[in-house]
């Protein structure tokens, strides 16, 4: 059932990273299509993500990046195409299924619950219970413990300005809210972490810490998909770069094979990537 | 219980000590109950009664009546006048009587009748029978094509089936289950000839509902010549529907409100059974006042388990064998004025 590997499309992968690509891809999408009435969201996109790599996805606004990862993580049901996790075809009917399979996602719209506080959001659908019978019999939540750990997670991302951890996230600043969403994904991802523009609202220092966290996740052997419009970030953190254009894939490059200018040129259609384009 | 303590608060002006009475009707929008409330209010002063008026929020609101009964007890009232919604309030009535209140049912006898001290009521069944007999007599053997405009279809209440089934009994039609509207044979014989029941439609006892109900019946069968209506507002609505179609039919109704009697006079309604809500309230209040001052209890009418305040058939086209009064006579005593 496992799909044939896509050609890696680039031979600029440093030798110390080669072993990553010898294994089977952890997450693959084949010929993904989605359409709403007239509007075409994805037009047959292929993607392979390997354990221990950061695959960046770049593309113009409206190129279909968010749509692509929504299809991969169960948020959308693609009209056609297959998804494989660990070589086995999967059918995620809801985001919950993907989460249970070990894929943690930060969606572009963040998907936090406005009226709940930081800890409740961070641990939503992953709640921890109190030790002892209070937890096992009465199923009481370990509110204090979660609040403490949530605070630590958010502060680890460089967010120092939250004065009251019990604030509903609707009252947080844009960046603080994004940090909550990112911290959640980092805390719970076990196989794959998908980040849709995780630093869009973050400050310089906080963005840096998120990039560090991404590298940390990769070094821990997870596969990471990073969508970003920040080219320096992409070129700094990515192992390979999937370029999305007009609902299709315009090619896959590496930071070593192409520089930022070339990448942007391919992305905007000013230049075509003819060689090595995956089938 | 203690009776004196509460009266201090009710700021008693006036001379003698007033006795507290609560009147609890089914709702406060039905003209029949509004009339009853008005009558009671007018009489309260005469009888040195401190009257509180309460009601359910709507037909079927047992809880509202139960609450009102409990509140009357808490207020320290001496007696309660109630049109019981259903036997769902019997337990609360018992509680009130246990607490020493004198409870009189008005209009609707409770089931069983000894739930209350006494009932002042009209016999709704009898009211229905009278108009049924009148209709049968008026048809003189002609085929009766009948529309029945009832009160509800999402609730089953005793006025609804007593009047409807009484009417059919008066016409000499077999009603099958006497507590169930709509289960009689759709065609058959009445006392004077053939009958056909076209419809049972809910009217909510108001003009707009009566009109809509009648329109539906006419759409089913445009030859309807007898229309039973739960009350006079529904009859007015039914008449509007008939007029719009250019049709005429015998309309009969129950209540005998002043407007309803007017409709009899103008020929809209053929006959209506008149009831006397004011009289019920007046008698009830007098009785409680009397008992509170050490007087005797009233007695029930002969052969009945309640005190019959009477029904009279109001029509300007009397029929042999059914005693009736004219619309002019009815107007003088409408609702007990």
């Amino acid at each position, binding site marked *: 059932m496992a799909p044939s590997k896509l050609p890696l499309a680039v031979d600029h992968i440093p030798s110390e990273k080669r072993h990553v690509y010898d294994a089977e891809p952890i997450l693959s999408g084949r010929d993904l299509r989605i359409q709403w009435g007239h509007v*075409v969201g994805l037009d047959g996109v292929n993607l392979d993500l390997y354990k221990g790599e950061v695959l960046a996805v770049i593309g113009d606004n409206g190129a279909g990046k968010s749509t692509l990862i929504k299809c991969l993580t169960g948020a959308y049901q693609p009209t056609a195409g297959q998804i494989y996790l660990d070589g086995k075809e999967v059918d995620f009917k809801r985001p919950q299924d993907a989460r249970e399979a070990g894929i943690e996602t930060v969606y572009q719209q963040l998907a936090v619950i406005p009226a709940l506080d930081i800890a409740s959001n961070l641990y939503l659908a992953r709640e921890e219970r109190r030790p002892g019978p209070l937890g096992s019999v009465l199923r009481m939540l370990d509110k204090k413990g979660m609040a403490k750990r949530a605070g630590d997670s958010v502060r680890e991302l460089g967010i120092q300005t939250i004065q009251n951890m019990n604030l509903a996230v609707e009252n947080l600043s844009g960046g603080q809210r994004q940090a909550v969403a990112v911290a959640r994904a980092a805390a719970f991802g076990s196989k794959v972490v998908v980040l849709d523009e995780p630093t869009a609202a973050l400050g310089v220092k906080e963005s840096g810490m998120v990039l560090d966290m991404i590298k940390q996740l990769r070094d821990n052997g997870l596969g990471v998909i990073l969508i970003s419009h920040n080219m320096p970030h992409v070129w700094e953190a990515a192992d390979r770069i999937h370029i999305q254009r007009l609902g299709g894939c315009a090619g896959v490059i590496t930071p070593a094979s192409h520089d930022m200018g070339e990448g942007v040129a391919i992305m905007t259609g000013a230049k075509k990537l003819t060689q090595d384009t995956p089938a | 219980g203690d009776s004196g303590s509460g009266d201090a608060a009710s700021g008693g002006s006036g001379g003698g000590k007033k006795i507290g009475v609560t009147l609890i009707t089914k709702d406060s929008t039905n003209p029949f*109950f509004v009339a009853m*409330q008005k009558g009671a209010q007018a009489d309260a002063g005469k009888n040195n009664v401190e009257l509180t008026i309460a009601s359910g929020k709507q037909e079927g609101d047992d809880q509202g009546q139960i609450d009102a009964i409990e509140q009357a007890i808490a207020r320290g009232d001496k007696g309660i006048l109630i049109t019981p919604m259903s036997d769902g309030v019997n337990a609360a009535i018992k509680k009130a009587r246990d607490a020493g209140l004198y409870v009189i049912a008005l209009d609707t006898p409770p089931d069983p009748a000894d739930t209350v001290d006494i009932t002042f009521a009209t016999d709704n069944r009898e009211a229905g029978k009278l108009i049924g007999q009148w209709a049968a007599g008026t048809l003189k053997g002609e085929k009766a094509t009948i529309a029945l405009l009832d009160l509800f*279809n*999402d609730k089953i209440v005793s006025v609804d089936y007593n009047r409807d089934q009484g009417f059919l009994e008066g016409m000499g039609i077999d009603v099958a289950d006497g507590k169930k509207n709509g289960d009689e044979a759709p065609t058959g014989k009445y006392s004077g000839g053939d009958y056909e029941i076209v419809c049972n439609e809910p009217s909510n006892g108001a003009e707009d509902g009566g009109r809509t109900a009648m*329109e539906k019946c006419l*759409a089913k069968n445009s030859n309807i010549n007898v229309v039973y209506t739960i009350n006079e*507002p529904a009859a007015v609505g039914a008449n509007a529907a008939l007029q*719009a179609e250019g049709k005429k039919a015998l309309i009969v109704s129950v209540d005998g409100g002043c407007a309803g009697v007017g409709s009899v006079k103008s020929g809209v309604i053929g006959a209506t059974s008149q009831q006397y809500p004011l009289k019920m309230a007046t008698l009830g209040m007098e009785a409680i006042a009397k008992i509170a001052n050490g007087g005797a209890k009233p007695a029930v009418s002969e052969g009945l388990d309640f005190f019959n305040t009477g029904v009279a058939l109001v029509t300007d086209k009397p029929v042999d064998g059914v005693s009736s009064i004219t619309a002019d006579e009815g107007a003088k005593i409408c609702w007990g004025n």
Partner: protein
Amino acid sequence: MTTSTSDAASRFSGRQQSPLQRLQGLLHSYPWVSPLVILIVSFIVFTILNPRFATAGSMGLLFQQTAIVAALAIGQTLVILTAGIDLSVGAIMVLSMMVMAALAKDGGMPGPLAMLIGLALATGAGLLNGLLVTRINLPPFIVTLGTLSIFTAIALLYSGGSSIQASHLPDFLNALGNGFSIGGLRLTWGVLLVIVMYAVVGFILSQTAWGRYVYAVGDDPESARLSGVPSKRVLLQVYTVAGLLYGLAAWALIGRSGAATPNAYPQANLDSITAVVIGGTSLFGGRGRLVGTLIGALIVQSFAFGLSLAGVNQQYRVLATGILVIVAVGIDQWIRKVK
């Protein structure tokens, strides 16, 4: 840049559309098509059950029976589009009706003047709702629940609980009950008035800036405020206009009932909300079309009428109505989703 634009355009739009896709596109642009399908299907079914359903006479009656709730549902739609709810529809209508009738009773006041005063009163009642919602920031549910009690009580106290018969009223107040026939289809002036009300309010909602504001305020009040929409003023106007519309319904109701009664139409609230919701308008505001409400009102009334003609017994009819409402909206959902 120009090349990439045309590239994008050609890449995306050069596809064939299957008829089903076209249907879907249609349903997306005109979401009320789907309730209309339900209405037509139920017409067909009821006609099969009893052919009298399809006669011009029956249709005329159906329109007359729908008119009042359809009129109330216009105001209710406006309020619900702003994410509110109006529980005082019936109470305002009844109060306005009783005032019109009492003022004009037995020639006390010329009909048109009495009507205008009743209309002004209804408008004022709507304004009161609006003021409480916008100035004191109370939830519309609470405000209209409160004014429901208040207006109901005032109407009862004012009228003394007794109704006023058409014969005591000037022709002008009864006029909307009269009408004309077109080939057996009898329509009243009241039905025509309601159709005009739909046309006017529908035009305002879809063609004017104010209509946009109504949708914006209901869909996302905070964004609307930040966008510079005068939210409070729009809300106030919505409740006031709704009041005015209920006043017009009051006038139509006098004509229809042949009387002004203080206990008319006790189920006006639920019926009007039902018409709006079946018509596809979201109770969360900002989404829906007025024409859907008209169709919704017709659907509900045609169930009642059709089941009655089909000879279904009273309590079974209540049961059947419940099932039909669920099935109808279920089919509606299904039509919208068909791929």
